[in-house]
């Protein structure tokens, strides 16, 4: 699904990622943990194709294709989804409209018929219900006036509607209380499928109590320092990131 080989990335001339190697197979959930400033968010943004990140070495191979140079919308159409740490507010554009246009853009890319308003709303309502998202949140402007928890749930709703192959959750647990986190985790678990892979980027172990990862990687100083099974997350919870030099980071 995703093969990252010796990836080096600079932002405004400063090296952030210094040789990342990562291999995610279809159906797997990987957690990437690490101290603040380790490059976790950079990794998620560079996979999704954000401008301003310069790949100075290495490659990102997704479903056998090098992603370098592809626009974010093309990556989205190919099945990559990034749940934002800080979802963006877009006044004046209804959540429903935004999601319908996004889904139809992806459908157009694949030569599929667009969904009309009726079909879309029906589908969106079903997904929203599963995630405990009230109807009025769908009608309101994108993320405007949403609480932190509502914004994160809205990200998971978008994921459920766009049905990606590779989902990246960037610090989705930050700012969530336990109840909201359970709902988010349930949403992610419900989407677990043999053809879908998930990358969970997080500072804390607690989300991983609810979403059990197949592999855990520790990212620090722009490199994967250690990889292991889910028990590695528990170990980090106990010992912190001291051995990876958080104080120095």
């Amino acid at each position: 699904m995703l093969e990252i080989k010796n990836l080096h990335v600079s932002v405004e001339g400063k090296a952030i990622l210094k040789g990342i190697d990562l291999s995610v197979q279809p159906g797997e959930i990987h957690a990437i943990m690490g101290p603040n400033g380790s490059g976790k968010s950079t990794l998620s943004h560079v996979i999704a194709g954000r401008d301003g990140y310069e790949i100075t070495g290495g490659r990102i191979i997704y479903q056998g294709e090098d992603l370098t140079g592809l626009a974010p919308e093309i990556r989205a159409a190919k099945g990559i989804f990034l749940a934002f740490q800080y979802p963006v507010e877009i006044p004046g554009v209804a959540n429903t409209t935004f999601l319908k246009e996004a889904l139809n853009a992806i459908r157009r890319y694949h030569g599929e018929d667009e969904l009309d308003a009726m079909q879309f709303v029906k589908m969106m309502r079903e997904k929203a219900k599963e995630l405990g998202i009230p109807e009025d949140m769908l009608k309101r402007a994108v993320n405007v006036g949403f609480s932190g928890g509502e914004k994160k749930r809205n990200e998971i709703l978008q994921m459920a509607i766009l049905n990606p192959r590779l989902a990246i959750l960037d610090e989705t647990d930050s700012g969530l209380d336990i109840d909201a986190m359970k709902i988010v985790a349930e949403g992610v678990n419900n989407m677990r499928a043999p053809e879908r892979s998930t990358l969970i980027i997080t500072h804390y172990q607690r989300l991983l109590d609810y979403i059990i990862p197949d592999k855990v990687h520790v990212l620090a100083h722009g490199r994967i320092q250690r990889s292991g099974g889910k028990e590695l997350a528990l170990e980090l919870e106990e010992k912190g990131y001291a051995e990876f030099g958080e104080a120095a980071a």
Partner: protein
Amino acid sequence: MTTEPTQLQPFVESFDPARSGLPGAGLGWLKALRKTGIERFEALGLPTPKLEAWKYTRLKPLEDTRYQPVTDEDGMAALNTVPSLLPDPGGRPRLVFVNGWMRPNFWIVGDLPDGVHLESLHDVLETRPDWIRERLGTLAGEDDSSLVQLNTAMMDTGFVLRVEDGVRVETPIEVIFVGGLTAHPVAYSPRNLIVLGKGAEATVVRYHVGLGAGAYFANSVTEIDVGPGALFRNYKVQAEALEATHIDTVRARVARDATYESFSLSIGGRLSRNEVSVRLEGEGAHCALNGAYLMRGSEHCDNTTQIDHLVPHTTSREVFKGVLDDESRAVFVGRIVVHKDAQKTDGYQLCKTLLLSTGAEIDVKPELEIYADDVKCSHGATTGQMDETALFYLRSRGVPEALARNLLVQSFIGEVLEEISDEDVRRAITDQVVHWLPAACYLAEEWRAE
């Protein structure tokens, strides 16, 4: 060595031969008014950036172009369809002017309620000379700007709306000024007068639209008198031709418990200036002065506004939003004067600009002058570029870049369009904004025409 005399010459020279053909030529008082106008104009000269009020706007096209009077041929230029802003009028009142000339065959004035008088300036000068004599020039008088003086001298077209006490006009009245259908540069000077009696209500939409590519100079002046407890909505869309110079002066006075609401959309014209002043003269008077400007190429748009709070307990709200692309320029000057006795004034002003290109430029100048001590006044101004994070957010969901950019412009402008209280007009103005957006335009559902 000054070059001003040669710049004024064409305007001044054209005055004498034209005056006998101008409306109301037989009226002595009007002759005198026009004469004072041209003399004042000559004395003041064309505004230059040396004047504080014109610091950021230079009237270069007026310096460089020799505009000619509108001929019969220009005024009667063929018009296959009327470029109406509002949907199919279906009896909706409508006036049409082409290159400044009245085209009564396109007018619809039949269905107006009793007590509403919508006429041309020509007709009112003939039928009610004494009535108009008392009102013309009272709000835009001889101490006003030089371009108002020029208009007073040359006023050759325009309309008069008179709504009697307690009469309400439900549908918006549309006044269409078509320009650009000439082979040579022309100048015309509409002079409009709007008088609402006690408790009256009316909505006027002025649509200044350019067809064809001709250069022209439209120098409009509108005087508006909103009587006690009356409500007047003054909407304007300026979609002038590429080579047009559009000067629009509005002078309004708002009486006790009356409301003046205005919205001005500027989306076309090489050089435009909307100069609006509103005097809140009676307790409980309120004004909402809003607008949006979307410019590209090398267009220049200036919105200079002044609100005078003259008595206690008056309120004003002012929101302007701009979107500037390419090498376009815009100016926003928002002056709010709270006079000495105007206690309990409540004033709010906001100006936000979105720059889509590094070559675009905005000059914003909020000016609050407060001489009373118990008032609430706030203002804010922001200028920024498109939010790259928001753009990435939309694109990361699959929305193509060009469409995502349009969506964010719509999102930005949407807030100020909410200020338009008439629903039909809001929809019409929203459509104009959508048409302005680059081709391959992405229309979110709520922006699509029904």
